[in-house]
């Protein structure tokens, strides 16, 4: 044991730890990161925070748990992903304390493979086995009519799809903290559920664009020459088309589903990443440590994935952070224009568009609150990206 602790004191600080240390120096970036974590928590726990179904209710002397009965496959998928993701983060932390640095990379790679396969299999199983239920029971009415007792509701006891035409276009009150919209749904509830859309659009769209960007950029950057020449022209043509109009055009042809929007945003915004990675690879190819790897007779796989990619990926990750903010923005804009997800699924941009009602009244609470949500989320992502960019500054590598 004592030998082991001694060995640990000899462990060096990895690049990741250095970046984190530099990142954590700024209080603002920590605040922004916490805000994003908070948003994620809200998005994951949305059904428990805002739901018109009670956690527990006693009907005819029998206890029921309607909130859990009503969770769909996608809800369970989100929980599963959240649990796996959190444990992956804990594992990374544990790796840094307990896994020998020389095999840490392999261990991490293995863990990520296992985690993602768990998520993948879990999602498939959940969608196959969890039945779709539609429970239209109005439990609140039941409680009001004394048909049921002992009901425990979520903190915001409204459903995002529940309409109430009697209560439409209400300004903020104690009943509805942020008011109601044109069909009488609670704004706060829709805001909470809308965070799921915004965050997942950001993540998946940027994930798609980053993967495409890295692949294309790596190919162009490594091979260079004619491949690069032709590839770059294609990338430039892509960049010359205004992305937003391209997206609107494509969206008009397809069903208005969340997945479609994510994919479309993803496949139209990879050009920046491709250029980044290409430039990095060009630079790295001439670096001495890559030349050294070549001259040691290491195979191409090792040169590309062990020596070049880890050193070239940092700026892409930073770019991805900005990309998430951009994707959230695009989704909001699409929804605002009515090309977003179909109602009743809530989305911040779509809520924003309801600010001017059909009667011509300006409903300030429907503009202000989703607007603030978009603003702060995009701001937080941008600030985190900026802090990350400062943290990976090349001066770290030399000192």
């Amino acid at each position, binding site marked *: 044991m004592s030998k082991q602790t001694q*060995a640990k004191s*000899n*462990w*060096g*600080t*990895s*690049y990741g730890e*250095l970046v984190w240390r530099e990142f954590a120096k700024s209080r603002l970036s920590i605040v922004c990161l916490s805000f994003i974590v908070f948003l994620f928590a809200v998005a994951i726990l949305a059904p428990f925070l805002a739901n018109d179904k009670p956690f527990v209710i006693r009907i005819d002397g029998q206890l029921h748990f309607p909130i859990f009965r009503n969770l769909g496959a996608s809800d369970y998928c989100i929980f599963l992903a959240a649990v796996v993701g959190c444990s992956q983060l804990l594992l990374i932390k544990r790796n840094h304390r307990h896994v*020998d*640095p*020389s095999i840490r990379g392999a261990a991490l790679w293995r863990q990520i493979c296992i985690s993602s396969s768990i998520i993948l299999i879990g999602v498939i199983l959940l969608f196959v086995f969890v039945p779709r239920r539609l429970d239209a029971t109005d439990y609140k009415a039941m409680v009001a009519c004394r048909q049921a007792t002992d009901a425990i509701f979520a903190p915001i006891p409204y459903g995002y799809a529940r309409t109430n035409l009697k209560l439409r276009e209400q300004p903020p009150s104690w009943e509805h903290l942020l008011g109601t919209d044109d069909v009488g749904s609670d704004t706060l509830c829709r805001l909470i559920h809308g965070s799921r859309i915004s965050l997942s659009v950001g993540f998946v769209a940027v994930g798609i664009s980053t993967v495409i960007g890295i692949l294309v950029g790596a190919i162009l950057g490594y091979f260079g020459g004619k491949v690069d*020449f032709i590839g770059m022209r294609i990338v430039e043509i892509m960049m010359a088309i205004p992305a937003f109009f391209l997206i609107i055009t494509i969206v008009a042809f397809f069903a208005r589903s969340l997945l479609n929007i994510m994919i479309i945003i993803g496949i139209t915004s990879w050009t920046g990443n491709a250029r980044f990675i290409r430039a990095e690879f060009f630079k790295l190819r001439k*670096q*001495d*440590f890559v*030349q*050294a*790897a*070549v*001259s*040691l*007779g*290491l*195979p191409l796989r*090792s040169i590309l994935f*062990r*020596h070049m990619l*880890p*050193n070239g990926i940092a700026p892409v990750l930073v770019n991805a952070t900005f990309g998430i903010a951009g994707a959230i923005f695009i989704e909001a804009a699409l929804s605002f224009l009515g090309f977003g997800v179909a109602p009743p699924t809530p989305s911040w941009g779509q809520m924003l568009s309801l600010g001017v009602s059909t009667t011509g009244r300006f409903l300030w609470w429907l503009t202000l609150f989703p607007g603030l949500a978009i603003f702060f989320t995009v701001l937080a992502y941008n600030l985190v990206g900026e802090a990350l960019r400062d943290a990976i500054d090349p001066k*770290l*590598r*030399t*000192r």
Partner: protein
Amino acid sequence: MTGKVAVPATAKRKRRKNIEQGISNVEAKVPNMVNTNDYLLRVAGLKTYFPVKKGLLQRTIGYVKAVDGISFGIQAGQTLGLVGESGCGKTTVARSIVRLVPATEGSVVFDQTDVLSADRVKLRELRRQISLIFQDPFGSLNPRMTVGNIIGESLKVQKKAAGSELIERVTALLSKVGLSPDHINRYPHEFSGGQRQRISVARALALEPKLVICDEPVSALDVSIQSQILNLLKDLQDEFGLTFLFIAHDLAVVEFFCDIVAVMYMGKIVERAAKEELYRNPLHPYTRALMSSIPQVERDPSPSRRGRRTTLGGEVPSALNPPAGCAFHPRCPLAEGVCLKQMPVLEEKGDYEGHFVACWKCQKKLIIDNG
């Protein structure tokens, strides 16, 4: 790295013999005169040109002749020094030899295998026997890998060692280059320049190469560290019988480290001789100017050397349009007539066998009776 290579003593003796003999002729035009088997590395007529491209269609408008017809040979256990100012092509020579840069013409024969025409598998095999040490101690180590991985990766990839044996060998290498075995799990940024250069040396030695190409290994280091690294390289050479191609711009370092010295100017070797001979009797005006330009520390309180030197005027011409005739003629104090028109060839001149000079103005070889 536990088993000591069995030839240090013989290699040393052989080296000494070579110095005494001087290097014999390895010119491309007279390959039959030497037994090629004697040489571990033989470079003949090596040319590396870089095309200069311009315009939208990337048309080639000319060539930078970075290396323009270079020939030399290194015998096993010997150290050849390649000296020259920045931009003279010495680094390109090193990179062309291991085909990090494609050579345009010529031949490189390593251990009786032609490097330039080797296929992928063969080339990888060759690269394991030739390793490189780079100048910049900060750029030559992957910042994302631990020292252990940097040194051990090639061993692992070649399946020469794994698991605890790998760690053992890496530890042995670390202590061989004067680092603590505790450093195995650290990252490069935690080391100073000199220590990083030691890591580079350990990486270069991991596969027990026959030839080590050192590309300015000490020029980025402070004086006190520089001497440590030079000593280390020399000790390792004695221990493992290594052969070095040592590239530097510092003539004093080269004199300390090498057996044979070749001076490069604008992609060509202008003078090549055994160390003792070259430093005692530099013939090419460029070599002389180089030697005279080095500021010297003189330990005796004699009057300062101010004004005693012969400073070379002018600057190295652009490699894109080199001057006609001898490339050195615009700066040469002796240049006249033929120098401006015709390129001199590297010929044996001077008092000793194996002293090659490419200069029209140098005296012809003196026939002396040396018993």
